């Protein structure tokens, strides 16, 4: 939990001082100790006692023993540091992404991708607010919340997926999500559903009164328009770069 080097540095503990001093002492008065030990056999007795070093130890620059961990930088759309709850960076908001680097795909992915793309229909494990939804074309999805700032008839794109698959093949992201340029998943907002009015009766002790708390939540209904895995040709057309190294996290694999 607590780095020893950090602590030693922060406390400026005399550990290093003591170590340095003892080593200096050992170096300077090595003969003294030896003389003491071998006093019976040797006749000469040196009397060098350099208990204090010439320069103060604190003046010697100590090497930095720890490197501070760099903290992530979040910037608001106005390029300022987020201070209040209203300051949310664009990549955490539901806005269309912009890409500054082309998609990198490995040659093995391009070789294996036709197996997946040719086998329809496809399913997707789309993540909304980090919650997975297993979807395929034509599915109706009732979200467990009311999606803000959408109207019925709007077309949404789901852009975070962990698994894309067909009957026999699947494309899995590594620890992160799959790149959103590998697939297209569109859903249409069908409307809003509301649950039946729930009434919870609340009572307090020694009080002949029943408080009735009502709740009636609204949920968004979506229908999956299409789940499409882009083919290798489409990826290359859109400017994907083929790299030889296997740093690209996505990998197609045969299901067990």
């Amino acid at each position, binding site marked *: *939990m*607590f*780095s020893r080097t*950090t*602590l030693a*540095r*922060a*406390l*400026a503990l005399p550990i290093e001082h003591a170590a340095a001093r003892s080593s200096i002492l050992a170096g300077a008065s090595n003969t003294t100790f030896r003389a003491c030990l071998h006093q019976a056999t040797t006749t000469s007795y040196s009397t060098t006692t350099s208990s204090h070093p010439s320069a103060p130890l604190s003046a010697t620059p100590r090497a930095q023993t*720890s490197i*501070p*961990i*760099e*903290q*992530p930088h*979040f910037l608001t759309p106005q390029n300022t*540091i*987020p*201070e*209040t*709850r209203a*300051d*949310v*960076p664009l*990549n*955490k*908001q*539901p*806005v*269309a*992404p912009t890409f500054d680097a082309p998609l990198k795909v490995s040659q093995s992915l391009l070789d294996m991708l036709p197996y997946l793309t040719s086998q329809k229909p496809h399913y997707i494990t*789309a*993540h*909304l*607010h*980090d919650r997975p939804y297993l979807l395929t074309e034509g599915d109706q999805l009732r979200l467990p919340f009311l999606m803000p*700032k*959408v*109207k*019925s*008839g*709007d*077309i*949404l*794109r*789901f*852009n*975070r997926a962990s698994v894309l698959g067909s009957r026999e093949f699947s494309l899995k992201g590594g620890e992160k*999500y799959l790149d959103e340029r590998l697939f297209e998943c*569109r*859903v249409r*907002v069908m409307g809003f559903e509301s649950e039946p009015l729930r009434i919870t009766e609340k009572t307090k002790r020694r009080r002949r009164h029943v408080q009735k708390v009502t709740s009636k939540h609204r949920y968004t209904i979506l229908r999956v328009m299409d789940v499409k895995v882009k083919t290798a040709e489409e990826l290359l057309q859109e400017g994907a770069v083929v790299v030889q190294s296997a740093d690209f996290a996505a990998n197609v694999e045969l299901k067990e």
Partner: protein
Amino acid sequence: MSSYFRVTLMRSAIGLPRRTNDVLKALGLKKRMATVFHPVSPSVAGQIMKVKELVQVQEVDRRLTKQEVHLERKPDPGYYVEKTSGVEFEENRLA
């Protein structure tokens, strides 16, 4: 280069001696999972040492605001509006 301690209270101090609670209060840790930043100094290190069983400590390069600490945990929404119904209606009307 100045650096900071990033201290997160992982375990509650309920039932612990008053001195422990006071040290946490002095560090500014009021509830579990609260995160505070303090410049690296011997006095702060000593305070952390007193409650080292309760907290998680990192040495970091800068102090984050409360919202930035929150944003570290906030997941991506995972969707965006590609086309609103109004835009699509106009397209169909003109076509």
